[in-house]
């Protein structure tokens, strides 16, 4: 199913730097285009919560470069490439408040 058949899809973010379409040779899924955004009744039925708004707030305040160490770890890279089957499905980053998980921005 080609998402372009849903012209009223809504994307989020500032439309500027992130959340581009992820493409491969013949099909495209825009990770943030939710085709049901034009079905508000169904969206409300599923949940009153909309985490995309929060994501936008958080990312606007984020400092470039902060947290990049995580992306370079072998754990993250392996997780992202889906190594380790079901046993490697969950990546848990833990820390006390203030160590960078939460308050560094």
């Amino acid at each position, binding site marked *: 199913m080609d998402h372009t058949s849903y012209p009223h899809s809504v994307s989020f973010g500032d439309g500027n*730097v*992130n*959340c581009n379409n*992820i*493409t491969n040779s013949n099909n495209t*899924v825009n*990770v*943030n285009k*939710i*085709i*049901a955004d034009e*079905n508000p*009744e*169904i*969206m409300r*039925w*599923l*949940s009153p*919560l*909309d*985490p*995309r708004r*929060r*994501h936008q*707030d*958080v*990312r606007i*305040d*984020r*400092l*470039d*470069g*902060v*947290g990049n*160490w*995580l992306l370079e770890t072998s*754990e*993250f890279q392996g*997780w*992202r490439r*889906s190594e*380790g089957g*079901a046993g*490697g*499905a*969950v*990546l*848990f*980053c*833990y*820390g*006390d*408040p*203030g*160590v*960078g*998980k*939460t308050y*560094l*921005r």
Partner: protein
Amino acid sequence: MAGNLSSLVIDTLCDEPCEEEIAIAMFYCDFRDKEEQTTINVMGAILKQLLVRGEVLEHVQKAFQKAKKEVGGRGLRLPDMVQMLKQAVATLPKVFICIDALDECLPKNLLELLGSIKDILGESPRMRIFVTGRPQVEAEIIRVFTSVTIPISPKAHDIKRYLEKKLEMDTEQYAMSDCLRADILRVIPERISGM
């Protein structure tokens, strides 16, 4: 503001081209909304973000129409929600779910939430879950998943970046000297990160 690491991971997944199609769903737990952030509402919010393909939406639409006909209209239960999520995740080639600050959800919801995710993962082992939280939720996570864990400690580089930004934003620039600035950027990151 919470959630920086999670938002970085989400943006990274969004930005960097992947060999296969991916769909990303996120959730930021927040103790201020903990009453509303029930397991079913959280799972529903995740499912909403996975409605990126016609066949996934059609399935949900059918369930919605069916629920509307039933007495009381809306009786969506957690097993129904999990079932719809299973179907959505199985339909999409690759799904990433990022959940921030798991410790901020109510304890009674935590195991239920993790159990629901495990249930979905059982049918779609290629799904990938990124979770952040305080150390005390590690025990719960280990009870449910065999997960890979990364401890987060203060990083001198990150603290320096943060201080630089704060110093730039300082409204009383006249009180700052190059010498003092250099001292702040040297001493504080060293002390906090213990390097």
